[in-house]
């Protein structure tokens, strides 16, 4: 067996006994302690996890016997000031609940990822970004204060002024500096519960990049869907979306209902998302957008969370599981870097109906946070025997351009490639030396990428 094939089969082997999995559906042996009481249950724990919406192995235990705490029942709001929008919550409080409770009051999360089924703790640990990254930065930019349990079991609070090094390391630190117990952050006011959206059909990748650039100063929220299967002249065609919250006078008087909860009830067969079905899906998506440009008032749910309408859509990938490859290519690498990346991606053939492109603003304060000024591309991939080869190959390109991958999505990157794309790693490891010299906190991902002991 080649080394490539054997890595994949190890990753795919499902050990007997209880297992945990994240959004990519590749389970690891282990169990989680679901608890409301983080102040007791995180004692001696080595990892916290939220709703397991990260695609990779950052929320999975390094060893089946590791004490892993699931925070999702630790979900109380500890304080809210309607004057300032400052909200303090326990780490397991879910974004879905935030939206449900605070949108009617005229508030929204300052930053939201593409799913609402995440915890606030998870949003801090991954320092998530959204459609407004070019304006608002990552979630961590809006965090005022954290309460953290450190590896030595002490509980400390940190903020931009109190233990700022711990604060910066915890934001985007993938749970490796401490267990986040409580978070205080500032909500944004919204003028209505509707989004004013302009969407545009874009014929190729270069027009996409310039489209994002022109939209950025005009629109607080932008992103695009691209078809990563079409090659040649139309490579990178897709739909660019820009939006802003509708002003009160523009919005309909009714409040939008929260989306229905449809679940794909069983594992669909593996062949469902083969290259043919995938390209049909993309073709339909592109041409559904019949007019070149259109403006509409839309509900926030389909605008921010198009995939949440189908709970557990990840099961559509079947039992073999899937992964997402997300990287950011720095602006300084030049405009052609993105089309060169797309060329490599389409040549490798990942068969993904889902490909998201977004321009990122400046790097934030999180020591290991993902975004940097440039273009982020996220593409879903079924886990095929080729997956390691594809990821290695894309990573080689990312290293050349000076870009990096997003840890929360990653399952297959190799340690040597990670080091090459992460000059900030030394600084992060110095923080771990300070706050967790024995490396008690760890995950399957930290073993794979940071060299922690298995």
């Amino acid at each position, binding site marked *: 067996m080649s080394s490539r094939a054997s890595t994949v089969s190890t990753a795919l082997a499902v050990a007997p006994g209880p297992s945990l999995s994240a959004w990519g559906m590749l389970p690891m042996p282990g169990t989680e302690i679901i608890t*409301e009481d983080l102040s007791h249950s995180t004692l001696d724990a080595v990892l916290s996890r939220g709703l397991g919406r990260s695609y990779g192995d950052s929320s999975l235990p390094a060893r089946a016997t590791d004490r892993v705490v699931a925070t999702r029942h630790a979900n109380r709001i500890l304080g809210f000031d309607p004057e300032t929008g400052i909200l303090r919550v326990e780490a397991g409080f879910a974004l879905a609940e935030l939206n449900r409770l605070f949108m009617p009051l005229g508030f929204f999360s300052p930053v939201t990822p593409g799913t609402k089924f995440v915890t606030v703790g998870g949003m801090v640990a991954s320092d998530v970004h959204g459609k407004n990254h070019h304006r608002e930065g990552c979630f961590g930019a809006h965090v005022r204060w954290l309460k953290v349990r450190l590896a030595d079991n002490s509980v400390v609070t940190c903020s931009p002024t109190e233990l700022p090094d711990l604060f910066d390391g915890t934001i985007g630190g993938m749970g490796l500096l401490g267990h986040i117990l409580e978070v205080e952050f500032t909500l944004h006011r919204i003028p209505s519960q509707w989004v004013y959206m302009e969407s545009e059909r874009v014929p190729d990748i270069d027009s996409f990049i310039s489209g994002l650039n022109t939209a950025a100063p005009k629109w607080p929220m932008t992103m695009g869907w691209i078809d990563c299967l079409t090659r040649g002249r139309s490579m990178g065609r897709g739909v660019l979306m820009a939006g802003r919250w509708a002003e009160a006078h523009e919005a309909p008087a009714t409040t939008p209902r929260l989306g229905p909860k449809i679940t794909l009830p069983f594992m669909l067969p593996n062949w469902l998302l083969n290259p043919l079905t995938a390209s049909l899906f993309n073709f339909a998506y592109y041409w559904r957008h019949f007019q070149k440009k259109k403006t509409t008032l839309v509900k926030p749910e389909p605008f921010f969370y198009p995939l949440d309408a189908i709970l557990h859509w990840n099961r559509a990938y079947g039992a073999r599981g899937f992964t997402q490859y997300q990287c950011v290519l720095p602006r300084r690498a030049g405009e052609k870097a993105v089309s060169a990346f797309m060329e490599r991606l389409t040549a490798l053939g990942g068969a993904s109906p889902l490909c998201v492109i977004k321009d990122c603003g400046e790097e934030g304060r999180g020591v290991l946070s993902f975004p940097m000024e440039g273009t982020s591309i996220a593409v879903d991939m079924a886990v095929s025997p080729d997956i390691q080869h594809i990821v290695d190959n894309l990573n080689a390109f990312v290293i050349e351009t000076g870009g990096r991958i997003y840890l929360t999505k990653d399952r297959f990157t190799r340690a040597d490639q990670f080091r090459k794309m992460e000059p900030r790693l030394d600084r992060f490891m110095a923080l771990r030396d300070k706050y967790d010299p024995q490396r008690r906190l760890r995950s399957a991902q930290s073993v794979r990428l940071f060299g922690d002991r298995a």
Partner: protein
Amino acid sequence: MKAVILGGTNGIGRAIARHLAERGDAVFLLGRDADELERSAADLKARHPKQRPAGTALCDLEAPEGFAAALDAADAGLDRFDTVIVTAAMFATQDRLEADIAFTQRLLTVNFANTVVFCEHVKKRLLARGGGRLAVFSSVAGDRGRKPVALYGASKAGLSAYLEALDHKHHADKLAVLCVKPGFVKTGMTAGLKPPPFAGEPEGVARDVVRALDRRKPMLYTPSMWQLVMAVIKRLPRFVMRKIGF
């Protein structure tokens, strides 16, 4: 509804408190940890800023001498409550209990004797004001003597019997007594156990309980599937129960 919840800081009690507050019902929390009570009251307040904030008072099922004062506080906070819900209870595995008889005594006292005493205080007050509702959490574990829950189950069996009698005795006095029998629910109480099929979530159980309270039902299995499961288990012959592990 003006509801007092003993055990409302955690698990199913927390979900019931949220569900009631969301409907606009007034809620008062009783529990044994002041910090937890404060955090839960803050949660309800932030969720429903326009509503009357939930009051709280200390009440420990191991300290029956404090029951009257706790109910006084609730009466003052709610301007006379009309509903009382008891979710508070102890749980431990059979192994743990068998290894520690003193602990077993505590659990039996809290889950049965002191819960009944608490209900007696509540009953008196509600009857004096012309009726009301009392919902108390027993368990499917009390439906049949079973190996893995011999002691915990016995405490709940006693409680179920008391609640049934209370319903018989005071139904005509407009005191609606609800005996709740949850099956496996994923809460802190069961955090260390492997969830069986049909395991419930606290939110679903809370909805069922509030609906049963509204309809003044005397008994509720929740999730409802457990009614069927227990119907079968109750009919299993003794020789089968002796053989099987549960």
